[in-house]
């Protein structure tokens, strides 16, 4: 579904990503880990279409990824992911309005009824059925992220991009969110890319773990070489029988340095 061939990304003479060659199939759940500034968010932005690559290719179903965001690729950011001026229900219903081809994005008549039902069902699914008329600022961080996920799903994306979505949440709430994301991933047949800097989260969630790191470092010119995917491991259900590979210790050392 997604193919990257010899992908490079530079900002000026700073190389951020280099020599990335990967293929991702429909339905995979990829977690991206690595130190900050190692290009995992940049990779997500390339998928999203808000950054353009410098060399190589990045294709979705054999075609170059569009150079602007679109409804086939949903996103949940760490914050600012929902609209503060709409209620919980309004945030999700607005999606149906925004998918119409008109100027105002307002819903009327039967469409409004349909959107209301679909939104209520979706919000119930993520556990927000009691807060439909609240505004985002009245919600806790975890509830806000549930809303952001429900909103993204309402657009029925094929690919869901998660940019450190649980980075600001308490550990207990984070565990609940993990379960929710895993369930929604299975129910909706999604392909998920999730950036995290929590290695445990990377191992627990998903089918595939990518570690971004810089294999080459020139001390005279720190920006000369970029990061690449240094480990590409099958994890979770797809992982081969539990074997704590010796590389895990070294990965922990490199990623948490």
């Amino acid at each position, binding site marked *: 579904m997604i193919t990257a061939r010899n992908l490079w990304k530079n900002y000026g003479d700073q190389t951020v990503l280099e020599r990335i060659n990967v293929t991702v199939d429909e339905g995979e759940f990829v977690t991206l880990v690595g130190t900050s500034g190692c290009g995992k968010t940049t990779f997500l932005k390339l998928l*999203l279409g808000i950054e353009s690559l410098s060399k190589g290719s990045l294709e979705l179903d054999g075609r170059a990824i569009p150079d602007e965001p679109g*409804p086939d690729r949903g996103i949940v950011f760490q*914050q600012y992911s929902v*609209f503060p001026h709409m209620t919980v229900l309004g945030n999700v219903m607005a999606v149906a309005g925004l998918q119409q081809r008109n100027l*105002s*994005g307002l819903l009327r008549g039967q469409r409004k009824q349909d959107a209301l039902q679909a939104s209520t069902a979706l919000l119930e699914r993520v556990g927000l059925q009691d807060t439909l008329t609240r505004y985002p600022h009245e919600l806790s961080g975890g509830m806000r992220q549930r809303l952001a996920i429900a909103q993204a799903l309402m657009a029925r994306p094929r690919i869901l991009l998660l940019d450190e979505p649980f980075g600001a949440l308490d550990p207990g709430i984070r565990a609940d969110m993990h379960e929710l994301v895993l369930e929604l991933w299975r129910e909706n047949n999604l392909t998920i890319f999730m950036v995290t800097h929590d290695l445990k989260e990377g191992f627990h969630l998903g089918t595939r773990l990518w570690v971004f790191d810089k294999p080459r470092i020139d001390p005279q010119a720190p920006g000369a070489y970029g990061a690449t995917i240094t480990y590409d491991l099958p994890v979770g259900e797809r992982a081969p029988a539990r074997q704590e590979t010796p590389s895990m210790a070294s990965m922990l050392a490199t990623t948490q340095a």
Partner: protein
Amino acid sequence: MKRMINLSPTPAMKWLLGLLPFVLIIVLYVVASDARLAENPSDKLLPSFSSMTEAMNRMAFEPSKRSGDYLFWTDTLSSLKRLSIGVGIAAIAGLIIGIATGALPILNASLSPLLTVISLIPCLALLPVLFIVLGLGEVSKIALITIGITPFIARDIQRRTREIPVEQLIKAQTLGANTAQIISRVLLPQLMPKLINSVRLSLGTGWLFLIAAEAIASTDGLGYRIFLVRRYLSMEVILPYVAWITLLAFLFDLLLRKLGTRLFPWESAE
């Protein structure tokens, strides 16, 4: 003894402390006025409160001998009409220009330099031009107010538009929104409370232009009246008029603030 920066007044004390300067000014005025009037009963500089009340009674509740109008109310009405039309047009124009340039980089590139230059023109210097081109009627006064505050509102809204987190714009696009929908559903509603704030801030300037325009060429209005009676040193009319203008300005501001919190409950939490 606590440090000064840690001493804060109780709520009741705060009221008293806030009221104190007003009381002091009034007392000071009364004492000074009495002293001058004792020396010269026909002194015009610091009229007594009774002569101000009498003058205002005449202005507000007795028809003018010349025109039969109740001058105070006709003055107030025409001034408020000019101000609200002028500010209203400026708010709409500023909102449109501000959103368009804030949201669309191409429009921004072509309009921003112009907007910067226009906002630097001292508007009062344009007043003669307006009088020549638009005549001495209502249009030129309203135009002065509008031209005077539109650039401020437009630039404020432009900045506020850019302050909306880019994540929201990206999110809207991933939900399938087009440019028009992003402007109407995401940007516009979030900018309305900012517009109210912007109008509140520009009302002071609006009054300034209104009074200037009325002082120079008008036949009624609050500004016209105080400049007219200045010829007779009628401080007993000027001072209440100034107080009335201040009260109106305060009420406008209060009204807009209440309107903002009423209409946009999600905004006040920030």
